[in-house]
């Protein structure tokens, strides 16, 4: 398939396969990014759903730059990982499920981030009572745990 050949023969594709350290470095970056994205989002979600009520939800806003850095790290490392074996991943049902969940997770987090941004620090009561924010918190919580599950299961589903 032309697309697969193109990816495999790209500079990134070749580097990932030929270089001794490319794959471990990219994999490490992906693990770090994952811990940042899932970690920060889960902490935010736990707070929104009632844990550690003494912590103002508004104060989490300055943490989100770290979350977005994690998303960027994983987007880039994810592309590199894909390029290391496009033939395996392109039609892999578990991988495609993970990507679908991940995109949904990023979009959901974006909406949650935007929704929180509409309230300033003085509006804690509004944030606490917002059904939309609570719903987005449940959604991102479930989705991001699912992304981890899907990610781990990729290796366990063999393609012919």
């Amino acid at each position, binding site marked *: 398939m032309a697309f697969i050949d193109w990816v495999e023969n790209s500079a990134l594709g070749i580097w990932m396969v030929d270089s001794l350290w490319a794959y*471990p470095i990219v*994999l*490490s970056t992906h*693990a*770090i990014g*994952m*811990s*940042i994205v*899932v*970690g*920060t*989002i*889960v*902490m935010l979600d*736990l707070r929104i759903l009632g*844990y*550690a*009520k*003494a*912590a*103002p939800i*508004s*104060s*989490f806003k*300055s*943490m989100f730059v*770290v979350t977005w850095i994690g998303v960027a790290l994983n987007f880039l490392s994810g592309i590199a990982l894909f390029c290391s074996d496009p033939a395996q991943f392109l039609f892999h049902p578990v991988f495609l499920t993970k990507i679908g969940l991940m995109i949904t997770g990023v979009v959901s987090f974006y909406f949650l981030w935007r929704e929180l941004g509409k309230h300033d*620090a003085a509006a804690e009561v509004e944030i606490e009572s917002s059904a939309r924010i609570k719903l987005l918190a449940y959604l991102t919580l479930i989705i991001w*745990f699912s992304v*981890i*599950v899907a*990610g*781990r*299961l990729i290796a*366990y589903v063999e393609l012919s």
Partner: protein
Amino acid sequence: MRDSVWMFPLAEIFHFIGLSLLIGSLLVVDLRLLGVIKNMSYAAVYRFLPISLLGFGINMTTGILFLFTDPFRYYPNIAFRMKMLFILLAGLNALWFKFSVYPLTMKNPEANDCGKLAKVVAGLSLLFWFGVIVLGRMIPYVED
């Protein structure tokens, strides 16, 4: 562990969930100590530490399960040994935090800047734990 085909992937899934809980909760605490997160009383911030302990507990349990699946694989592995060393260093840093930074910040829980010591301990915490993640990923790569 070896008899059930699902035990290893299940343990891996929980190992990754545990590390995300650990890193996420420590990011809240460390980013606060570093002054990136502001306007959050330390009394509230430290409510995230039990989550760190939960994450660590999940990972210690699943980690021990991994050891039982293949006892002779891990001991000679240099990445595994260094990972254990980094966990020890992170633990020592946590003790240092407990006896120095924790009482310091609780004296003035609303302060946004807690001085250099707090920042050093927070920075080391993140360095050691991200190091643990990287070394964990390296375990299969340094084997023969």
